[in-house]
C-alpha cells in the first residue's frame, strides 16, 4: 500500500486517486452479495482501503459481479455498467461468471460473462471470503499501477463486438448503443 508516498501522488495523481478511492456499486447480481455486508462492516471494514458502497452507478467506479449471472440479470448488469463513468473496473466473484460454474449446462444462466462486459479481475471461491475480496482489491491496485485494468478501454474500442454479443444473448436491447455503432453489415470483424 503506497498511499502515503507523496512522490507517487505528485507524479501520477489520477492513478493513485483511482487506486485508493474505489466506490463499489451496491448491486446484488447473484448469491455472492451475502459476502459484501461483512466486508463493509465492523469485522473486516473495507473502508480502510477506501472502498465504500454507493447507491447509483453514476457515483461508482467498481462493479462487483457477485455470483452466477442469470439471463434476466444480464440486462440490468449491462445497463448499470454502461451508466458508470470511466475509468471503471469490474471484479467477478467465484467461477460462475468465468464459465458458468456448476450451472454450465443450464439454459437460463450466462456462461462467459466477459463476452458481454469486460471483467478486470476474478476471485476464486464459491463464494470468496472477505479476505479474498481484499486480496482482489489489492490485485486491482497492482493492475491499475501496471495499466492492465483497462476493461473500460477494451469496451470502448471493440464496443460493436460487445453490442453484437449482447444482442445475440438478450434479443432486442431497449437502450441506444453507448458509443456510435457504424451500421455496416453485422458479420464483419474489426
Amino acid at each position: 500500500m503506497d498511499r502515503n508516498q507523496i512522490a507517487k501522488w505528485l507524479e501520477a495523481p489520477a492513478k493513485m486517486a483511482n487506486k485508493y478511492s474505489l466506490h463499489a456499486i451496491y448491486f446484488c447480481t447473484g448469491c455472492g452479495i451475502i459476502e459484501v455486508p461483512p466486508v463493509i462492516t465492523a469485522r473486516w471494514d473495507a473502508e480502510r482501503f477506501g472502498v465504500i458502497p454507493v447507491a447509483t452507478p453514476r457515483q461508482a467506479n467498481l462493479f462487483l459481479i457477485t455470483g452466477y449471472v442469470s439471463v434476466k440479470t444480464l440486462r440490468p448488469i449491462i445497463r448499470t455498467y454502461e451508466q458508470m463513468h470511466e475509468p471503471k473496473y469490474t471484479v467477478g466473484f467465484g467461477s460462475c461468471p468465468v464459465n458458468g460454474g456448476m450451472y454450465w449446462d443450464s439454459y437460463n444462466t450466462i456462461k462467459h460473462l466477459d463476452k458481454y462486459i469486460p471483467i478486470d479481475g476474478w476471485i476464486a471461491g464459491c463464494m470468496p471470503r472477505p479476505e479474498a475480496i481484499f486480496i482482489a482489491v489489492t490485485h486491482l491496485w497492482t493492475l491499475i499501477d501496471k495499466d492492465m485494468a483497462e476493461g473500460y478501454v477494451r469496451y470502448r474500442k471493440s464496443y460493436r463486438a460487445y453490442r453484437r454479443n449482447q444482442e445475440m444473448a438478450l434479443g432486442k436491447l431497449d437502450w441506444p448503443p453507448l458509443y456510435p455503432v457504424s451500421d455496416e453489415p453485422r458479420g464483419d470483424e474489426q
Partner: protein
Amino acid sequence: MVAKVAQIILSPILALVIGVFFLSLARKIMARFHWRYGPPLVQPVIDIIRLFYQKSVSHGQMFDLGLILSLAGSIVVVLFLPFGPICPLSGSGGLLVILYITLLAPLGMALSGGQGDNPNISIGISRKLILGLGYEVPLLLVLLAVMTRYKTISIMEVVSAQQRTGWSLTSLPLLLSGLSYLLILPAILGIRPFDVSSAPQEISSGPMVEYGGKYLALAKIEHAFALFINIALFVNLFLGGAANPLIFFVKMLVVFVLGLCINAVFPRFRIEQAIKYLWKWPALLAFLGLIVTLATRG
C-alpha cells in the same frame, strides 16, 4: 485594503480546509463508533481528486449552472460569516443577508437536480425543502430572539456584545433559544436522524443520483462548506465567536463532535416524524426563548 482582499481570498480556503477536515473526521468517528478502523483522515481529499479525474454525464445547461450557483452561494455566505477576527464582507447587510444567501445553496442544488430527469431526485428535493421548512420555524424564532436581545441585525455587533457580556448561551433569556438551536442543528447539517433527503437506501442518495465525477466532487465540497457555515453561525451567535481563530476552531470542533454522536446512534426519521419533532419541542423552546427575551428586553 490589501488586508481586506487577503481576507476575502483566505476565508473561503480556510472554510474549505476546515469543512473537508470535518468530513474526514465524521467518517473516522463514525467508523470508531462501529468498532472499525475507518478510512485515513485524508480519504475525502483522495475521493475529490479521483472524482475530478473521472468523466461524468450532464443533463443540460441548468444541471451544471445550478450546481455552480449552489457552490458559489455557499462560498459567498462564508465571506459574510466572521471566523474569529476574520470577517471580509460583514459590513453589507448582516444576519438578514446571511439568512437569505443561505437560500442560494439549496435552491441551486434543487434547480440542478430538477434538470436531472429522475424521480428519485425530485423526491429527494421535495423532502429537502420540506425539512428546510421544518427547521426554519425554530431557527427563525431563535435568530429573532438573538436580534431582539442585542437590538441589532449585524452579526459583528452580536459577537462583540458577547465578548463583553459573556456567551449568549449562558445568559438566561437566550439559554432556551440556544438549546432549541442545538436540538435542530442535526437537521440543519443534514446528518443522520434528518438525512431524509439523501437517503441511499430509500431514494438512492436523493439529489445526488445523477451526479457523476466532477458534479459529485462539487456536491461534496458544497456539503463541506455547508457544515462549516452552519456550525460557524451557531458558534458566532451563541458561543461568543473567539478573538483568535484557534479558539473559534476548537469551539466548532466541540459542537461538531456533539452532532456526530447524535448522527452515529440514531436511525433515520421519516419526513413526517422529522417535521413533527421539529415543530414540537425545538419550536416550543424557541418560542419561549423569544417571549422571555421580549419580556426582559423591557
